């Protein structure tokens, strides 16, 4: 086991990172790279690495390590780097509170409650799965209804099979991956039901997780009712109308003992809210500058806590930036404040970061509201980039070079995705 335990918890750190998943580990490395001295990563699990340990499939690291790794390999490589750089990793510990003076209240497994101080904080708490309550499926409340990520955890870490015959609601990547995983473990997957007219996961996962095993995908369909007293006995599924309501006349029942939900992730921002950083109502994550600094001085954020990413590589990349800027902040080298606000316009749900500077290159992440083919992204009138298609399920990434902003003197740029 490569769990790192801080040998002796110090009273004050340069940078404390809340969360030891892929975001937190990258942030800690970024802070170290920029010369921060005492760095602590706090994680509530028994070992840092986050969700990666249970994501046993391949597909990680193509950007970052230039090879295709499984989740555990990606986690272990990162964790090894972190420990090599003598970054303290404190596991089995929960950050209960952060105040405006950047004092953190920790609940530790070994030492009870401890308060430590940080010159800078990186929020890297990640996200959690949406549950049945978020979509209000009618019916009974039997055992056997669980999130896809929970099923992944019990199957891949603990070796329990959740049932014998499963239905999956939602076509997010975790649901698709679990459709294959359950099939390979001998559980029959009756189908994946997606309320939207398009799949939510990556196309490669539709191919290698569903098509490879002849698992049907029903688009514009949903689970209309759950049946069963103690345990799920069957579910009623149905196509949906334009208002996304199930059409009763076309419903049918499927016998199953398990219903997996893969209906999206929510950034985990209870700490951010307590702390009082401003959140974006669309992303449900902190509003951040180009240096991934929140609206609160010295508090940075990166990864799924800011917005939900499709790929862990992007989580690492964004959080590395958050960590680097935390490092620059504590060493007194913080770059000048941003001077341009990005405002999401036509067919843009959100952009991260929320502000940029005309002096530095930036990577901008955005998500569209609806699919579009043959379109362009426009940054005001300064930059236009052609795209062959956009898709709400696929984050759009693009780089803006300072040269495009040389002759721009405004303080806000509208970002639009328009048909060509």
């Amino acid at each position, binding site marked *: *086991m*490569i769990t790192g335990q801080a040998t002796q918890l110090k009273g004050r750190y340069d940078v404390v990172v809340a969360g030891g998943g892929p975001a937190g580990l990258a942030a800690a490395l970024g802070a170290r790279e920029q010369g921060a001295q005492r760095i602590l990563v706090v994680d509530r699990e028994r070992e840092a690495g986050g969700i990666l340990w249970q994501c046993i499939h391949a597909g990680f690291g193509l950007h970052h390590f230039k090879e*295709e790794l499984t989740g555990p390999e990606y986690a272990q490589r990162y964790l090894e780097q972190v420990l090599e750089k003598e970054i303290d990793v404190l596991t089995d510990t929960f950050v209960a509170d952060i105040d405006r003076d950047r004092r953190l209240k920790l609940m530790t497994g070994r030492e009870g409650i401890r308060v430590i101080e940080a010159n800078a904080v990186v929020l890297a708490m990640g996200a959690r799965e949406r549950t049945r309550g978020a979509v209000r499926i009618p019916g009974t409340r039997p055992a056997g209804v669980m999130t896809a990520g929970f099923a992944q955890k019990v*199957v891949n*870490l*603990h070796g329990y099979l959740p049932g014998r015959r499963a239905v999956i609601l939602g076509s997010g990547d975790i649901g698709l991956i679990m459709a294959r995983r359950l099939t390979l473990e001998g559980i029959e997957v009756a189908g994946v039901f997606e309320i939207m007219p398009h799949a939510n996961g*990556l196309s490669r996962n539709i191919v290698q997780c569903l098509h490879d095993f002849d698992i049907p995908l029903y688009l514009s369909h949903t689970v209309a009712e759950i049946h069963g007293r103690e345990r799920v006995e069957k579910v009623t599924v149905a196509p949906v109308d334009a208002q996304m309501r199930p059409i009763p006349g076309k419903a049918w029942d499927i016998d199953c003992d398990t219903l997996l939900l893969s209906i999206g992730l929510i950034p985990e921002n209870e700490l951010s809210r307590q702390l009082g950083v401003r959140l974006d109502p669309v992303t449900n994550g902190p509003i951040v500058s180009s240096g991934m600094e929140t609206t609160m001085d010295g508090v940075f954020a990166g990864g799924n806590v800011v917005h939900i990413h*499709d790929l862990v590589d992007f989580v690492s990349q964004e959080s590395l930036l958050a960590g680097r800027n935390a490092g620059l902040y504590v060493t007194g080298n913080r770059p000048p404040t941003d001077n341009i606000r990005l405002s999401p316009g036509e067919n843009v749900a959100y952009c991260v970061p929320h502000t940029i500077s005309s002096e530095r290159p930036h990577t901008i992440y955005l998500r569209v509201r609806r699919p579009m083919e043959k379109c362009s992204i426009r940054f005001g009138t300064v930059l236009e980039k052609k795209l062959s298609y956009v898709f709400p399920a696929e984050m759009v990434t693009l780089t803006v070079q300072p040269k495009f902003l040389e002759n721009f003197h405004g303080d806000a740029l509208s970002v639009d995705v328009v048909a060509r």
Partner: protein
Amino acid sequence: MTDDRISHYLCIGCPLGCRLEVEEDARDTIVEVRGWSCKKGERYGRQEHTDPRRMVTTTVGIEGAALARLPVKTSQPVPKGQVTEVCRLLRTLKVSAPVRMGDVVLADIAGSGADVVATRDLS
């Protein structure tokens, strides 16, 4: 050029998911692979059309460790038709802790030529 000489695939080489077209001549020889954005996609198109293969990732039991399952992968892709068999064979395999990432837990599974290797340290 008739359409039945063209097969469609989606490249699973990376998350981009390029849509590939593999064109054959009258003697079933591949004449062109189109639609890829990198060379890996071209290779994938040929491979998928003639001999589809997949990397297998699953878990095996582990004794004496903090967790009950050890994640593993095949050292190279195995024929697509063998994926289910590989997983079935591994379901009952049990190893003992400690294991290091990269350790071979089973050599040449199902005669596929691929080894099964651990994808993490576990003790």
